[in-house]
């Protein structure tokens, strides 16, 4: 069992200080923000290193931060061997929303990333099947963005009541 701070220490040891920041709210859980350039390496390291062994990606959620004009992804992982959990995040600007895909690290990220793309419109680099999943392929916009405006018509049919 390791706390988020202890895992952060291991990461800093391995990759250097500048890529990680510890975050937390007034309530709830802490998280580590990882720079997008290092995300793929760090994730693989977290899965394989014997001190962390985060072999289970519980959840992957896209988030839109309209104030900062940023898109983000939150990853919730836990280790079935060592029984600790870790939340880490990555944030990228809306203008260049490229995030490395973690599909090759945890297979379950495949559909979760497609959903995040569908709902928020970030791009997951190296994703094997980067398509929408819940909305039709020709849908306009990304519904879970805070500034989303619903299209009036879809294939000639009204989307309003």
């Amino acid at each position, binding site marked *: 069992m390791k706390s988020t701070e202890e895992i952060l220490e291991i990461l800093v040891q391995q990759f250097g200080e500048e890529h990680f920041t510890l975050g*937390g*709210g*007034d*309530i*709830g*859980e802490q*998280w580590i923000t990882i720079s997008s350039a290092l995300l793929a390496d760090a994730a693989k390291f977290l899965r394989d290193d014997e001190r962390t062994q985060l*072999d*289970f*990606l*519980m*959840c992957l*959620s*896209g*988030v839109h931060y309209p104030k900062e004009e940023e898109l983000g992804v*939150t990853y*919730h992982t836990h280790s*079935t061997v060592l*029984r600790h959990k870790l*939340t880490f995040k990555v944030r990228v600007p809306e203008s260049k929303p490229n995030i490395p895909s973690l599909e090759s690290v*945890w*297979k*379950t990220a*495949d*559909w979760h990333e497609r959903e995040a793309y569908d*709902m928020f419109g970030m791009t997951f680099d190296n994703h094997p099947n980067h398509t*929408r*999943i*819940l*909305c*039709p392929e020709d849908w306009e916009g990304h*519904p*879970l963005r805070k500034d989303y405006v619903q299209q009036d018509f879809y294939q000639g049919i009204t989307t309003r009541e």
Partner: protein
Amino acid sequence: MITDTDQNIEKKEMVINMGPQHPSTHGVLRLELVLNGEVITNVKPFIGYLHRCFEKYAEEVKDYSKVIPYTDRMDYVSAMNQEHGYVLGMERMLEIEVPERVEYIRVIVAELQRIASHLLGIGAFGLDLGAFTPFLYCFTEREKILDIFEKTSGARLLYNYMAVGGLMRDVHKDFKTETADFVKTFRPKIKELNDLLSYNQIFIDRTAKIGVLPEKVALNYAASGPVLRGSGVKWDLRKDDPYSIYDRFDFDIPVGSGEVGTLGDCWDRYIVRVREMEQSLRIIEQALDGMPDEGDVMEAIPKRIRPNEGELYVRTETPRGELGYYIVSDKSANPFRVKARAPSFVHLSMLPAISNGALIADMVAIVGSIDIVLGEVDR
């Protein structure tokens, strides 16, 4: 006899659609099967037909407690379990201490719901494979649970029963006796079900060694619930990451063992569900004994829900596996973000990994054995 012309037959892959309207896809799901003869070489699931923007609604309802009825509508056959996860998360955010009586009632209804959901899953699974009778037996029993729920909450399927900090109303006065009666009468029915379906040779022939999911693949795909346990992994959130008052009860975690075929096949996933029902009965019995008779179930419900800034991920064990809610609060009246991590969504994504090389008829068994509910997949 092979003639010249036969040898020159051009072998081509064929693509056929299973669904979206198909009785054994358990809802509106389309599977695109790439076939070589009758053997599946690739399968692509297409989902989204039931997408109702749960997460967008949650951000716009202007009240944290108004999200609860929507959680019901995700996995509509185990609504109690869906509510349980969400209210637990909110209580953790607001740091509310919930009365004992509420905790006990929640556990009892959650376990009853687990049995009801498994009965539907098992019955429909048999039905998919041509066993019509067990389905009716299962539904007779499920009906008894729904009757108890109807008396308690007023609804048969979508209850809106749990509230942040308590329950919408107290249970009806015969709740304890009726539930105890159900436990007593239901136990022998499990044996009946085993005789009728579980160890039926035709059923075993259709499910053993089909759709094998190895442990490593299951973990990498983040499988959970009966699907993960069917592959022999002893992992149950009620024991391994206890929430509510589950740490007080004595129960076992059934896992698959490859009893009639290979470890992690369709039969293993099926039998885990059957055995889990017995364990749920054990929990219900203990909870009925421990449940306080008096107490106000609404005393801890806050008038206004306005959590501080912060976020958490809460996960609970539903009949289908790990249901997670990622809730982010920005101190306003409605959640900044609610993401539901639905077990069926994850399980369906590994369909291509376990069904290559199977026959079309096996596809029906595989989809049935992972027991998906499309309402939860599409949200």
